[in-house]
């Protein structure tokens, strides 16, 4: 593994040296950045746009790619889902980009999928998501449920002794599907129906008193209660405040959040949150040389010492590096050769390991559990070996029999019972 890596590095360096002089001469290679710069998702997505721009700058400083400079085409889909499809079409047909880095919410991804598949584009999607999808034209660099939700629940059951579960989520597809998977998984582990409480709230919900009271009341049958939170964004503030006001500490009822990271905690009063948990594949506090270097470069690039890094940023970095490696391997930026080349590509991640692109277009990722500290960072209390991402969860009967294998079977939705491809295009 190491030899392959160092060979690759050597190759890159050699190419950079050889082509350095003419790097800026060739026709630029265009990549699209499809992140919302305005609207509700802007706060999260703008960071990822900046990350891509930083990676492009670094790559150009290294002499570009295949001897040509990289050029980022930034568009703003403005948190408007139909606009994502429109802008994706524009990027692929008007700007003619070779790869797109973008999307955050599942619905935005579902919006661009048909366009990307129709025009045979290449999308790198950097956010943890609900799984149940594998497209020929998408590389999922965020976590699938088995790389975040399942290990997190295992941790709660084993390390915190949680026996009774409150699955609280914002009412949209990621919490819904994640909770469905968790529900099936917990029942499979012998948790009774009555020991799982599910609640969905609207986006930006603020009146949490009743729900917190419900959660506290779950403790009435003497079992340790744990909350698995897929509550999105700002609504978390009110939730944690109410929890603290009710006198519930992380020792009484631990909350495991899947959508609360450094960026969300930055600028918040974290006193109420200390000791609660989050599960990601990366924390800024991860101890590795690559991470230290990345944080330093990021702060320099953005010109702000207080800016934090987070999991989707790491996923973006991995995606970018994987694409660069695949393009170099394929010797071209055409989508099909790059897709052939990218499977099996190994790039270092920021937590000290490597991420491998799997045949189902997901990655291997370690699962990290962190406890929230006063300063808005996380104490990493658990870290697993890299887990291969599973596009179709094994815990729902309908998708357990499905498999995705692009180089092998040329299919993202392969029914292993009937040995046939259900559909080549994605399920959107």
């Amino acid at each position, binding site marked *: 593994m190491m030899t392959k890596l160092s060979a690759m590095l050597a190759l890159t360096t050699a190419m950079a040296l050889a082509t350095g002089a003419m790097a800026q001469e060739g026709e630029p290679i265009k990549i699209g950045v499809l992140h919302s710069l305005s609207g*509700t998702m*802007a*706060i999260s997505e703008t960071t990822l746009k900046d990350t891509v721009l930083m990676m492009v700058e670094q790559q150009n400083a290294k002499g570009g790619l295949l001897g040509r400079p990289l050029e980022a085409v930034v568009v703003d889909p403005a948190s408007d889902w139909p606009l994502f499809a429109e802008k994706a079409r524009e990027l692929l047909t008007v700007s003619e980009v070779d790869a797109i880095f973008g999307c955050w919410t599942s619905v935005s991804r579902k919006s661009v999928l048909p366009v990307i598949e129709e025009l045979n584009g290449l999308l790198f999607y950097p956010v943890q998501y609900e799984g149940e999808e594998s497209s020929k034209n998408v590389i999922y660099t965020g976590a699938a449920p088995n790389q975040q939700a399942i290990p997190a629940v295992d*941790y709660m059951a*084993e*390390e*915190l*002794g949680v026996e009774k579960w409150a699955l609280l989520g914002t*009412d949209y597809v990621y919490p819904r599907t994640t909770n469905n998977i968790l529900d099936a998984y917990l029942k499979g582990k012998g948790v009774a129906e009555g020991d799982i*409480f*599910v*609640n*969905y*709230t*609207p986006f*930006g*919900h*603020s*009146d949490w*008193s*009743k*729900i917190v*009271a*419900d959660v*506290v*009341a779950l*403790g*009435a*049958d*003497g*079992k340790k209660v744990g909350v698995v939170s897929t509550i999105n*964004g*700002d*609504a978390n*503030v*009110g939730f944690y*405040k*109410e929890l*603290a*006001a*009710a*006198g519930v500490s*992380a*020792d*009484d009822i*631990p909350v495991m959040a899947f959508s609360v990271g450094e960026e*969300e905690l*930055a*600028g*918040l*009063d974290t*006193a109420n949150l200390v*000791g609660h948990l989050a599960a990601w594949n990366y924390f800024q506090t991860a101890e590795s040389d690559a991470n230290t270097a990345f944080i330093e470069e990021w702060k320099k690039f953005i010109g702000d010492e207080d800016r934090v890094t987070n999991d989707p940023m790491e996923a973006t970095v991995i995606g970018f590096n994987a694409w660069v490696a695949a393009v170099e391997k394929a010797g071209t930026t055409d989508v099909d050769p790059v897709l052939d080349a990218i499977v099996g590509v190994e790039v270092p991640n920021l937590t000290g390991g490597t991420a491998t692109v799997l045949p189902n277009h997901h990655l291997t990722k370690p699962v990290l*559990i962190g*406890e929230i500290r006063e300063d808005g960072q996380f*104490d*990493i*209390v*658990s870290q697993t070996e890299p887990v291969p991402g599973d596009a179709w969860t094994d815990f729902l009967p309908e998708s357990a029999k499905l498999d995705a294998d692009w180089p092998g079977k040329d299919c993202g939705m392969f029914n292993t019972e009937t040995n046939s491809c259900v559909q080549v295009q994605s399920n959107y």
Partner: protein
Amino acid sequence: MIRPLIALLVALCLAAPVAANPALEAVIADNLEGIEKPSRRTVEPLVSRIAATGPEGLELLSAWANRALGVTEDGRLLIVEGGTATDAVTGQPVPGADPKMLRPNSGVRGVIESALVAGEIASPDPARRAAALASIARDGTAEHLEALRTAAPEQEPALAAQRMRVTNLLAIRFDPDPAARVAAIEGMAGDVGLDFRAALNPLLATTRIAAPAEPQANIARELTVGDDDFPREAAIALLTTQGTLQPRLTPADQRNALAANIVDGAVGGIPVADLSDQAARDRAYEALEAAGTVSPAATEAEADAAIKAHRFFETYAEPNSDVTDAARAAQTRAQVRLAAMTGIDLGLDALSLASIYFLAAIGLAITFGVMRVINMAHGEFIMMGAYTGYAVQTMIANRTLSLAVALPLAFAVTFGAGVLLYRLVIRHLANRPLETLLATFGVSIALQQLAKNIFGTQARPLTAPAWLEGAITVNDVISISSIRVAIFVLALLFLGLFLFIMKRTRLGLEVRAVTQNPGMAASMGINPDRIAMMTFGLGSGIAGIAGVAIGLFAQVTSELGQQYIVQSFMTVVVGGVGTIWGTLAGAGLIGGLSKVIEFMNPANTLAAQTFMILFIIIFIQFRPRGIIPQRGRAAEA
């Protein structure tokens, strides 16, 4: 094997009178990996071994639990406190050490704390005794029961009561003598505390079994097939899971069986092409059964026979029937009180929500009542107030003081904004309410985007002072966070203030006059324009205060106003315009109803909101002028 040697060498090198603890050293050396990467499930024996090594061991455990323990490259454990490191074994300071800090997870910390607790119960420090009791209450064991019973009597009355309670609860769970358990249960019967119910409910947990005859077990009751809580399907499912009954054929199994038996393009004589019909599939399967190719599936007759041959019981996991009887009696006694208290708690929640809606809507009601214009930017005034609170808090660190500054400042800022909006826009659109609505909507989107440009799209913290944190708790069921009580008081205060202004001041008199008949009021020397401006400012100012209040318990974002504006409209419209009592009634109705719907459908808060709005739409059909309609000439305008 090398590590103890090195440790020994290091200890020798220090060449000081070393109060070493060889037993601890040995335990550490053997279990270094377990200490570095502990797991809640396996750490307990290790913790007891360390605890058994004496005071240094306890010291180490407490440092470990407090995340003050580090491990050096050569495998020594250092206790790091305030920047100085001391060797955990020798107690010697280790200057210039750079240990890797250990971060045990909270499950492991709980195990360590529970091991330390026995000693802490007798601690001279009351705070530590209280913490120990809390820790036992959270995660008690049979040993703790022993420790509690043998510990010296508690002198502090509050702690003594708490210790009594914890001891009783542990007795219910762990006492080997059933009589003592029954006594403990009866002693607490009627209590609605969560901890008591948490002790009772596991005793009353039941499992269902099917057996040919009455089993030797603590039977809760016998079930009759066909009852509401035990339909025939449940009996069949139970028998199937017990293995007494063959599972019935699912369509998928049937299809697979058929597919496995295709002979010459036909199954059981029926062509495959015809099998797209369930009846044909059934016939084919029956043919296969008749031929003996597939094993017959359970039939209805078999199921009936099995049900007839069995009796169905619910049995307690707890073997002693005296204990379960006492527990059941205690639970029954608690149930009625519990229901009543849940009702009261729901009522408190509803009251709190109503007071929030009231605060948010009161400003709107004033402007709507006097000028008949809907101010779509009202929500943005709420937001402005919340951001004022945030801005003040970034400048003044003392939270009580900053709140004291923020409330009047928010009023002043939004009062100013309201007056400005009136002078610049609304005054010029007099008697054109729909256009006012749209113009103020333009102001609303501009203000919202402006807030995004200034403060960013991320939620900003607005933290309540410490004396407003926490909750007012009557018991484990009835509790309400202090901040909500404060908002309720604030709402009452504004109700009083509003009534005072309206009934007792010159301004109020003039406002009432303009509301009733602007023309006549103008003829009497009142300047309607000035009055409208003042009321608009007043309404906006109250919105600003509401913003601070809402920001304290929720989040401050640029969309804060949006979330409350629709509810505020509803409150005003449902209540009826023109009177403060109408707004109050509207807020009460909407708050109460929201909570009742939420109570009936706890899994889906969104559904509660949907039904709420539907209810309002229908309500308006029957009382188009609201709960308390305005009467007299003003109503005709």
